[in-house]
């Protein structure tokens, strides 16, 4: 064991001269139209402008939890926090990660109140749909649960952004995955929620020739580091564009 200690210490000394990291995400892109959330997110916007803070609950399953990443901080919720802080200096950004792997819309609706209320969220990003599609939950039941979940969150005073399914081999192979995506868009419209169209954004990556290995882990289902960071970056851009468009041009937020 002493040998081991000596080695690790020695090697640390050798390697600690390293430093820095590039956060560049080559190939991470989405068309402007795909980044339109389709909702003004009034509550979130007001919170940023008046309270100088934004409280976000990231509700979801394994994507939210960060399964498949080499570091949970690469998962989109933390990336969102990082990028919002960067884009809106002086605004306190809180992102509460409520991801539990394997859950579907039913299970998340059941804990919506308990997870959103104590955080006093202005915005709930709800990543959902994949597990419901894999479990073949009938789409009308799925729509009903989704709507109920949004209603609970809205009654607690939060805006919603739904994040739909990921475009990965295990999801694409399902017979009716697009039906779930369509239902989510419908429910979002009907309930006044935003929609972050992860499915189409990722499909565009694939159709542009990006291989699955670049953004999916070897299980064919979960996003890897690149996939998560890129989704985090694009989601942040979509939210910033919606609630603080000036920030994109670099102009400072005008204090009230």
């Amino acid at each position, binding site marked *: 064991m002493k040998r081991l200690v000596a*080695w690790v210490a020695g090697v640390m000394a050798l390697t600690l001269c390293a430093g820095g990291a*590039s956060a*560049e995400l080559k190939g991470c892109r989405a068309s402007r139209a795909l980044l339109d959330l389709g909702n003004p997110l009034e509550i979130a916007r007001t919170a940023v402008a008046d309270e100088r803070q934004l409280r976000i609950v990231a509700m979801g399953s394994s994507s939210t939890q960060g399964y498949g990443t080499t570091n949970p901080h690469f998962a989109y919720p933390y990336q969102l926090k990082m990028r919002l802080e960067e884009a809106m200096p002086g605004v306190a950004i809180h992102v509460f990660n409520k991801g*539990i*792997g394997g859950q579907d819309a039913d299970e998340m609706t059941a804990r919506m109140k308990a997870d959103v209320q104590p955080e006093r969220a202005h915005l709930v990003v709800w990543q959902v749909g994949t597990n419901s599609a894999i479990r073949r939950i009938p789409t009308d039941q799925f729509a009903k649960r989704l709507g109920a979940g949004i209603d609970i969150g809205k009654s607690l005073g939060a805006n919603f952004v739904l994040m739909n399914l990921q475009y990965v081999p295990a999801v694409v192979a399902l017979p009716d995955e697009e039906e779930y995506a369509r239902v989510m868009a419908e429910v979002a419209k009907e309930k006044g929620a935003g929609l972050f169209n992860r499915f189409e954004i990722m499909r565009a990556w694939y159709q542009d020739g990006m291989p699955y290995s670049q953004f999916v882990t070897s299980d064919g289902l979960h996003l890897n580091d690149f996939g998560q960071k890129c989704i985090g970056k694009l989601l942040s851009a979509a939210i910033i564009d919606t609630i603080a468009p000036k920030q994109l041009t670099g102009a400072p937020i005008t204090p009230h």
Partner: protein
Amino acid sequence: MAVLPVIASGRDIRLDLFRGLALWFIFLDHIPNNIVSWLTVRNYGFSDATEIFVFISGYTAVIAYARMMQREGWVRAAARIYRRVWQLYVAHILLFVAFSAQVAWVSIARDTPALIEEMELLGLGQNPYQAILQAALLKFRPVNLDVLPLYIVLLAFFPFVLPAVVRWPFGVIAVSLAVYAATCHYDWNLPAYPENKVWYFNPMAWQVVFYVGAACTMLGPQFAWLDRFRWPLSVLAVLYLLFAAFIALSWQYNPMEKLIPDWVTRNIYPIDKTNIDILRFLHFLAVAWLVRLAVPSNAPFLRWRIFEPLRRCGEHSLQIFCLGIFLALSAQVVVGQNEDSIVSQVGVSIAGLLIMSAAAYGAAWYKRGPAIEDAA
């Protein structure tokens, strides 16, 4: 009382060689976007170096402790296994500290809070006391620190299976498969930190690789029986490997991916790693079967000098494993600093393998002579 089977003495150098290879692969695969990792198995099929490492660990655990149990009794063997478990635990904690220290050092020295944000070990920043406690309990395993805890749990349970595996290897395989099936079916896993997380390598599923490896040690002579089906089995294995290679390469090349019919994708995905999907396990078994036929334990090339670094790394697997995981993080930082340049990827890969080999030679020199006692 039945006569206990004799466990072969002497070191099967195939085990050292392939475990060394697995350790090299694990190092190369843990450097993100590393062009050199094209040399590793995971690009050409479902299973990767983890299966090799766990299987050989099960295999060598029986070699190391079964004879000890027969000569000195179960209590002594169990005590030695727990001494090994303790070493693994200490190594894991040391690795955790070294990891955290490296991230902190780099961030402070370079004044790059962005790196802390990128690399920050979840929880360590927000709730360090809790994170340290959970790390000590093996529930908090940031970044790539998942394999040793798996190994610790597997080995901690091993004393209770050891007497059974030397007498009834087929029985152990049957029970192991049953536990594996039940784990997948009921979605069992061990709790982790932060809350609601689970073990990335589920010990209750991955035990199947370990115990099939352990049983294979005892079944050596009986495989002659399987050899009657050598040809059909080999043909099946080759066909399956070709299929898996096609699928794995399709992740890299979209035109290949488009050739795969929907009914195939629908049935194979997801190819779970946490609960070692049956496709992964079968893939490993097919590889192992073909390697067994292609590489007899007395194959001359095993002793070629060019493979000596691999064998040395395999002989000192715990130290080299820890070193490799640590070096992979350093390599990641260096590659990131050089904007993912291919030269830096190749450079850190070669440097890392050289350091690992040098360390293994150092360990061999220190130990003077073949290492037997800590072989598992």
